[in-house]
């Protein structure tokens, strides 16, 4: 699914303003603990989090994630936005709770990043 399409349909607020080519979102990962994201998120994943700290940009860049969405109306630091523009990491925020955001992504056919049969 295209990132621009997701941004439009979920009415995400784009925080970064760099010019870049269209991006495709592979999967979705939801977590606030960066150690978990480090261990589990995959390349091209969309990362949904409450964290607005600048380390999210460094991690998104390292893992080559497609974008980061800060949900639940949580604040994002100015420094984070500056770094995201520098590193060309798509950064969005939304007032919607992350459960709602995750649900809307799931309904659009985006599967969890590392799906395992649990039952």
């Amino acid at each position, binding site marked *: 699914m295209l990132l621009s399409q997701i941004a439009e349909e979920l009415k995400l607020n784009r925080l970064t303003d760099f010019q870049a080519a269209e991006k495709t979102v592979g999967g979705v990962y939801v977590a*606030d*603990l*960066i*150690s978990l*994201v*480090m261990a589990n998120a995959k390349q091209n994943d969309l990362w949904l989090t409450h*964290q*607005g*700290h*600048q*380390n999210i940009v*460094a*991690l998104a860049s390292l893992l080559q994630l497609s974008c980061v969405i800060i949900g639940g109306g949580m*604040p994002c*630091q100015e*420094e984070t936005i500056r770094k995201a523009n520098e590193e060309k990491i798509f950064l969005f925020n939304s007032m919607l709770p992350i459960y709602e955001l995750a649900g809307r992504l799931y309904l659009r056919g985006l599967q969890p990043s590392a799906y395992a049969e649990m039952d």
Partner: protein
Amino acid sequence: MLRWIKADLHVHTVLSACAELDMSPREIINTAKLLGINLLAVTDHHAIDNVVACQEAARGTGITVLFGMEVQTREEVHLLCLFPNEFLANSFAALVDQHLPRSMLSLHTGEVQAVVNASDQVVRFEQRKLLASLDLSVEDVCNAVARHQGLSIAAHVDRPQYSLLGNLGFIPPGLPVAALETISDAAELHRKHPSTVGYPLLCSSDAHSLPMLYKEKYTYFYVAEDVTLSEISMALKGEGGRRVCIKTEAKIKI
């Protein structure tokens, strides 16, 4: 003249809701004396109200008690904040009070936050729920601590939660933290988390009960007789012949 002193820079008192009721000034000081500890930092969550009582209880024992506080940032990272004196600690506590959320005011049933005196008597019960995230980032807190001439130490960095490494993955470049508190060996920590290389390491108890003060690894500082926060700061930087090291010793049986 410089000498080695044994330290524990992360100790809670009955003012922390999560601490046991045995964490009173007299009991803490008596236990520290028994363990040969010369330097303590009292670090309750978002409050400094029991530090003076601990200092009074320590009078004549040769134990120095530093003003400290354990802060929980917006990212749910725990930082130990140490201050050189009561005035600066109070000023920082006032700032923290402004950034504590007001919406979660009630304590759970059975939770006690007691301000006590040096004779272990309750002076008052703190009604604000002290343990909650401030609406300040890790950087905001470290910078505010620096403005108050204090030291920031990243608490229990090897825990998966409430820690700088667990929550933020690595140490943000340029973050003014003076040291990292860990239970890991330096080599192990550096291998798992390369961003920790170059930071002094400390081993503290994070004691919430008296038995937790008994450990196998303690931090030792090589500092002047009159132990102040600036001596500790110098030791962490390795200045003026001051040094810091972690030593493993046989755990004293309770």
